[in-house]
């Protein structure tokens, strides 16, 4: 929403404020000014001049030398190439040292262009005559300006007068952000009311006089509203003997300042009233309305209609149509029809000011793909009581501007009159909510400024119907607060029962994950929650894989963002690929983000959102590096038992021989592996890459921060090395579980210190060497203790087909 300052001043004549002052104060009282533009910011020293004499330039065919009276003792001499001026013309002249906004090609120069006297082809020229473009505006806004050449004033302007003022360019255009609850502020009158209240000035809205001849509009037109739900009110008035012509300058200026192009008196009046009252109006050529009957009804399914813009549009049953006795003539609240369009031949005009259901207009505009200024206003839900004021105002203007003869009376279909809302006035509750101590009288003064009147007899505030946002005490509190001043309300802290600030256990575990990942060299990434269904093929998931059952977004931004991810690895692989493409070496990333697993499709209840701790890396490190990070996380999360790694081929995007499922106390909690070379290649990661995914909900049951000190060993340890030749298919995990199980209580530690496969070892075998540390808590181990345990271990190992080396 835009307004010019001058238009606001029409209703708040005493307003005397700078643009910045207006902007700041209005914003603080709740009408946010997004910005403003002073139309004369770059215009300086521009007066009305009159050309007294024109001579040819002695040395240039296309130039003329003018003597211009600028209201000073002596005329100034100006050389120009403009083709359209003649002696006697009154024109805007920028004097020597003044500034204009831009060139006559319409290009605006920031800061303006300074005009200095000089010589043009040897002839002195002091100042410049201006086109409308040089004054920073356009023919769109000043239709009387010539297409190419100097702007020429009407004859009655005073020579030497301020040209900027006369053109109405001494104005400021404000741009507002109006919130959706303040429908009334989508109008100049509405904003002016706020301005008057903000600055404590008198508000003088337009005085609407009931005009019209002795005839009755009801004799010209009949109105039937078939759907009162979608059309709570329909007002119709008639103007006959219409005389089309340009509207007056003041009206053109007002419209131009609001960015609306002046067209003719009839169109300009409807636009003017729409801006002024926020009520869109429509004008039909009454002679095109068959049977002199307007019918407001829902469209038929598939009904075709040609709108004003010449487009054929297809309707459905939810679109409301304005029809005459035989055919549709307009799409309600959106656009009129080509068939009832006003032409230059128009004799009698039918004005429509109606109120339509906002939500329906919004949906219809979307459905038929046509949003107009009118629909933009209607969809906010207008006040039906405003319609009459607007249509009367339009008729008044028609008469005042001599645009036609207004027929008396109004056809008004208004089944259920909207009444003002009443809210109990409870000043003590308002003070309690705001934390203020404002007197009742002061509150009433604030409320009264915006037409919220107190009714003594009932103790209620009566909110006019244009204030659709007032329903309860809190709404009144806001009105009081914004005129009292948000800035004047003190700052306190909540009192009352103390509460404990904390994060949840899950959040603590996530914090551990972040800490561990980072000190292991992984940086945190963030990936989108939605991705493309093509991801599944890329990850080589088989057709029947349950992970392919993803939640679809009904209105996605595109195929690439159309499903909620069921796996976190695509985001990680994409991020690794981005880094690889950009030649970043040794990259380690982690992400903490949800996957979304539907319980059933289509979704009936909310999906299982599972937080995944995903790690990915390439460059330095290998499978075992990744494994180390996972174990470090488990340990720091308080999972002190040894996780079990099962070789796996379950994950098709991982190398089939280099992936493992990680189980903790028998429950699967994570998996990791090397990225399948085909997958890595398809993502464009040109080297070995590794992934690990920890399912956070699965570890929560095992994690904890309940540490217990176990003492520092006081008795010496005994270390024994076991060197063995192991069949290739026996896993380190198997060997370790034998050692752990057989070592029993006195086994303190075991570690692999050598592994070798090669020529020296017989085919099908590998050489492995473990170091085993034994220690008792309560005594020094004796040789016999040690040898008994070692014997058990070695015996167990032999059971795996392992040969012991001496």
């Amino acid at each position, binding site marked *: 929403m835009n307004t010019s300052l001058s238009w606001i001043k029409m209703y708040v004549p005493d307003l005397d404020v700078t643009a910045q002052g207006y902007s700041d104060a209005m914003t*603080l*009282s709740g009408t946010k000014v997004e910005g403003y533009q002073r139309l004369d910011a770059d215009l300086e020293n521009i007066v009305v001049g009159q050309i007294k004499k024109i001579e040819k330039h002695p040395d240039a065919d296309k130039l003329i030398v003018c003597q211009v009276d600028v209201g000073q003792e002596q005329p100034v001499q100006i050389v120009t190439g403009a083709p359209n001026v003649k002696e006697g013309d009154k024109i805007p002249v920028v004097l020597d040292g003044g500034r204009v906004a831009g060139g006559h090609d319409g290009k605006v120069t920031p800061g303006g262009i300074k005009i200095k006297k000089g010589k043009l082809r040897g002839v002195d020229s002091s100042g410049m005559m201006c086109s409308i473009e040089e004054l920073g505006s356009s023919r769109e806004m000043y239709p009387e300006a010539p297409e190419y050449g100097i702007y020429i004033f009407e004859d009655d302007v005073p020579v030497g007068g301020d040209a900027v003022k006369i053109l109405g360019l001494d104005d400021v255009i404000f741009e507002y952000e109006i*919130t*959706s*609850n*303040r429908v009334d502020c989508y109008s100049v009158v509405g904003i002016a009311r706020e301005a008057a209240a903000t600055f404590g000035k008198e508000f003088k809205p337009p005085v609407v006089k009931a005009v019209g001849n002795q005839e009755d509009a009801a004799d010209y037109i009949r109105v039937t509203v078939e759907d009162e739900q979608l059309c709570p009110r329909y007002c119709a008035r008639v103007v006959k003997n219409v005389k089309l012509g340009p509207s007056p300058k003041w009206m053109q200026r007002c419209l131009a300042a609001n960015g609306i192009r002046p067209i003719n008196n009839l169109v300009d009046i409807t636009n003017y009233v729409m801006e002024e009252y926020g009520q869109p109006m429509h004008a039909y050529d009454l002679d095109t309305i068959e049977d002199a009957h307007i019918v407001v009804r829902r469209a038929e399914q598939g009904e075709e209609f040609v709108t004003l813009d010449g487009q054929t549009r297809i309707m459905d049953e939810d679109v409301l149509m304005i029809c005459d006795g035989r055919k549709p003539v307009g799409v309600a609240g959106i656009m009129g029809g080509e068939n009832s369009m006003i032409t230059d031949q128009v004799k009698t005009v039918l004005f429509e000011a109606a109120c339509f259901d906002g*939500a329906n207009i*919004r949906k219809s505009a979307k459905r038929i793909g046509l949003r107009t200024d009118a629909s933009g206003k209607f969809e906010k839900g207008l006040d039906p009581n405003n319609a009459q004021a607007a249509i009367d105002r339009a008729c008044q203007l028609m008469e005042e501007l001599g645009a036609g003869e207004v027929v008396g009376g109004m056809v008004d279909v208004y089944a259920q009159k909207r009444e003002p809302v009443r809210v109990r006035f409870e000043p003590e509750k308002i003070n309690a909510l*705001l934390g*203020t101590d404002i007197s009742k009288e002061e509150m009433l003064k604030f409320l009264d400024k915006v037409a919220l009147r107190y009714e003594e007899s009932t103790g209620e505030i009566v909110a006019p119907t244009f204030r659709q946002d007032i329903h*309860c005490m*809190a*709404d009144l509190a*806001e009105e009081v*607060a914004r005129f009292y001043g*948000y*800035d004047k*309300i*003190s*700052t*306190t*802290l*909540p009192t*009352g*029962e*103390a*509460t404990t*600030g*904390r*994060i*949840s256990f899950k*959040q603590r575990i996530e914090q551990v994950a*972040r800490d561990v990942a*980072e*000190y*292991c*060299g992984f*940086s*945190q*990434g*963030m*990936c*989108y929650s939605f991705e493309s269904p093509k991801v599944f093929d890329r990850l080589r998931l088989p057709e029947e894989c349950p992970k392919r059952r993803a939640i679809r*977004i*009904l209105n*996605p931004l595109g195929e690439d963002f159309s499903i*909620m991810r069921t796996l976190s690895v695509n985001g990680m692989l994409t991020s690794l690929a*981005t*880094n690889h493409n*950009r030649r*970043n070496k*040794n*990259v380690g*990333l982690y992400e903490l983000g*949800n996957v*979304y697993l539907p319980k059933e499709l289509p*979704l009936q209840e*909310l*999906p299982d*959102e599972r937080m995944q701790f995903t790690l990915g890396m390439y460059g330095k490190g290998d499978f075992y590096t990744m494994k180390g990070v996972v174990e470090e996380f488990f340990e720091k999360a308080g999972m002190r038992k040894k996780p079990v790694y099962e070789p796996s081929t379950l994950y098709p995007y991982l190398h089939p021989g280099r992936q493992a499922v990680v189980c903790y106390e028998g429950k699967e909690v994570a998996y990791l592996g090397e990225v399948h070379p085909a997958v890595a290649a398809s993502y464009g990661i040109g080297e070995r890459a590794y992934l690990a995914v920890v399912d956070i909900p699965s570890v929560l049951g095992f994690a904890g921060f309940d540490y217990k000190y176990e003492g520092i060993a006081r008795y010496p340890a005994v270390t024994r090395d076991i060197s063995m030749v192991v069949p290739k298919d026996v896993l380190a995990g198997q060997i370790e579980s034998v050692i752990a199980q057989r070592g029993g209580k006195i086994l303190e530690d075991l570690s692999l210190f050598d592994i070798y496969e090669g020529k020296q070892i017989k085919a099908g075998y590998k050489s492995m060497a473990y170091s085993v540390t034994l220690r008792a808590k309560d005594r020094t181990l004796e040789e016999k203790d040690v040898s008994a345990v070692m014997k058990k271990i070695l015996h167990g190992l032999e059971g795996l087909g392992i040969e012991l080396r001496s």
Partner: protein
Amino acid sequence: MSMKEKLQKIREEALERIQSSDGLEQLNDVRVAYLGKKGQLTAVLKGMKDVAAEERPAVGQLVNDTRAHIEDFLEETKARMEQILQEERLREEVIDVTLPAAKMETGHRHPNTIALEEVQRIFIGMGYEVVEGPEVEYDLYNFTNLNIPEDHPAKDEQDTFYISKDIVLRTQTSPVQARVMEQGKLPIRMIAPGRVFRSDEVDATHSPSFHQIEGLVVDKNITFADLKGTLEGFARQLFGPETETKFRPHHFPFTEPSAEVDVSCFKCKGSGCRFCKGSGWIEILGCGMVHPHVLEMCGIDPEEYTGFAFGVGLERIALLKYEIDDMRLLYENDVRFLRQF
């Protein structure tokens, strides 16, 4: 030669050799030559049996004295030599301390998380609990219970992603408010950070997925002044003690009165710069008193309890605080970006 003379001679020779020895090894040779098992002094001791019994104590004393004398001198010389050696070694071991450090390769936290942790720290300190809610959410919680009924224009304004008629990707973290209030445990002081979704195309200032932090306090006697005080304190902790706040009236369906909050630009201190687009102020959050209708719908008696709520855009804070000029960087995960935090 008398025993005495003999010892005298041993002593002199020994001292002489200690004196002239060159290095710890030679010194050790001297020790062995005189004090070792087969050393000269040991040999003298072995010859004690030939000394007359009455002279033995005196001679024994002399032997011991001589031994002590040699030992002392040996130790002294050794210590001196060792000190010289150490000094030499230290001189040799001088390093170039300006050579590059052996870098500890640790990872880096995402700027969003750093900003979130700062915000959390501030509110936890004020007794707020950090809670979470689902990202795929019922329309009921995302809209209806927040006073945004069917057909409300805000539903369009927020460009919602729909999963079904009743299920959406949450457009705000505010539904967590409704969920917490519904549980009925009062008083409430909570913040709810999390991911939210709106159908905005990706560009330098928009992302279809971003983060918000919701705040909610519900108790008896909570006032708008409390809201102002709380957020002013928050802004000062986050942006510095000089930070000014400005509350402007605004509209949100689930709060009344509502406000938008600007902070004085922490870059130019309010004089106007590129960051604040010359205004000296930066908009950082929306807030208000919980709408009585919302309290009611969540089963809280608005006659007895009042509350305030606020919502902060996490990316907005991160972008401003760390001067990141393009939102897309946050989701690209380029380590050259991440390593700067």
